[in-house]
């Protein structure tokens, strides 16, 4: 089954290793549990205990095989595998509120932590001191940073925060890397420079995602909207007002489409049309309805009418795979340009893996129309 129920409590955050045989997750407490995929399920192989507060973010660097975790105890730890044990190294973030999210950069030489202290800590390892140091991006963030995503050039960082804005910052560390090449978001990228800022007319930004090329950034906001900005001299922003509950997480799966999920407990597809600058709802991706409609007796009908003012037999049972809000979505196979599998975890303590089948039909006059068919992996 592609749905596995790990716990009865919410999974706060999770991360996969490089070959997707192990998953590290936080079972809503101070620990991180690492599970190994066995033929007949999942076995817990490690328990990482170091945090004094709930672990709010986990990221697993695929190449260097290091895990970084951050928590409400205002700390972050970088874990390295020594033999068969994971050994933590403390990273002093110099924040006075909880850390909320953490992400390794694409080249894995630095990571960014968003926190309630209204700043982003960019941490990198200094060889001379044998110690992780951090630099802060403060201005002009006015509230908690809820989500982060790196641009493929290892320098630009998108952040979504509770001050209703999505921003792209430069996290260029001159000790670590050369000057980056110009991008559609700008060419001068000193540390902390704001390359793009959204208009801030919506709700809290729950999640941000760069597209595979880095030329587009998408964000999901608490006022049930999803928006995409395309980089350029004047960035073009397209947004879609949804008819559903707010989305909590999203990721690009091709350059033109993204998958998002949230309080409605099912992933949904959105397609971006660059020419017309519009986003359209591409469909709900979930288990098909399996419940048979049984007939109602007249007595039941009257009872329903009396109790609920409607004769419908709709039961108050969620028909989606996840039984509670989905809080995190990660690309498993393929990358953000051509994702073939993605994984969702939620507040029901379960993890689901979804297959993406891309069939492209190219129509003569129009640009390539991608129709994506989703089904659960058998």
């Amino acid at each position: 089954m592609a749905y596995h129920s790990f716990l009865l409590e919410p999974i706060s955050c999770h991360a996969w290793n490089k070959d997707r045989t192990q998953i590290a997750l936080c079972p809503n407490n101070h620990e991180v549990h690492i599970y190994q995929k066995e033929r007949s399920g999942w076995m817990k192989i490690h328990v990482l205990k170091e945090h004094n507060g709930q672990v709010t973010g986990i990221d697993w660097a695929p190449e260097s095989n290091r895990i970084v975790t951050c928590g409400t105890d205002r700390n972050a730890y970088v874990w390295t595998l020594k033999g068969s044990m994971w050994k933590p190294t403390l990273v002093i973030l110099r924040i006075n509120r909880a850390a909320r999210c953490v992400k390794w950069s694409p080249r894995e030489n630095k990571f960014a932590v968003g926190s309630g202290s209204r700043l982003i800590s960019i941490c990198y390892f200094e060889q001379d001191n044998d110690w992780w140091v951090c630099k802060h991006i403060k201005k002009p963030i006015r509230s908690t940073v809820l989500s982060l995503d790196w641009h493929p050039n290892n320098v630009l960082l998108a952040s979504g925060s509770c001050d209703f804005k999505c921003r792209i910052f430069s996290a260029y560390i001159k000790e670590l890397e050369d000057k980056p090449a110009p991008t559609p978001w700008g060419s001068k990228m000193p540390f902390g420079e704001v390359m793009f800022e959204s208009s801030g007319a919506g709700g809290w930004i729950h999640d941000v995602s760069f597209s595979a090329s880095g030329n587009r950034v998408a964000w999901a906001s608490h006022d049930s909207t999803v928006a995409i900005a395309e980089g350029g001299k004047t960035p073009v922003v397209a947004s879609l007002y949804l008819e559903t509950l707010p989305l909590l997480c999203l990721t690009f799966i091709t350059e033109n489409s993204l998958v998002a999920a949230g309080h409605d407990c099912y992933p949904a597809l959105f397609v971006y049309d660059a020419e017309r600058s519009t986003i359209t709802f591409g469909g709900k991706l979930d288990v098909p309805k399996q419940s048979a409609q049984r007939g109602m007796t007249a007595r039941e009908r009257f009872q329903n009418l009396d109790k609920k003012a409607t004769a419908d037999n709709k039961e108050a049972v969620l028909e989606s795979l996840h039984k509670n809000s989905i809080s995190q979505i990660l690309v498993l196979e393929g990358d953000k340009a051509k994702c073939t599998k993605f994984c969702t975890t939620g507040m029901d303590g379960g993890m689901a893996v979804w297959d993406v089948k891309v069939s492209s039909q190219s129509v003569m006059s129009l640009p390539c129309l991608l129709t994506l068919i989703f089904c659960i992996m058998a």
Partner: protein
Amino acid sequence: MAKNTLSSRFRKVDIDEFDENKFVDEQEEAAELQGPDGAEPTHLIHQGDMMTAFHVALRNPPVNTKNAVVKERAQAIVLRVLTSFRSSEIETAVRSLDRNGVDLLMKYIYRGFEKPTENSSVILLQWHEKAFAVGGLGSIVRVLTARKTV
């Protein structure tokens, strides 16, 4: 044992007010829309032209101003138009709105719920049902999260 012999007045100080980094919502310098003109919708209602009255009443929503009087006036006008609709016509009226219009209508409906009068709740609930069918839960979420209230 430490004894607190000094005054405890400090406990009543709200330190967040003195925080230099306190979040102050930036109000955009957008045009202050004064709400719909009172006479026109009334005139149209008397004429029986409900749809036009409806659209006129939803024009110029006072979202950018903090003036309570203007907002009250706009709310009263919209409420009058909504209550003079026949139940059968509500659906067509809602369908004639675009996405922003439905969100705006929802804002006015919830504003109307805040101060219920004799008959207003019944009619507002009917409007709510029709607007919900078009706007979905998202439109209600946008009413709750909107910082620029109508």
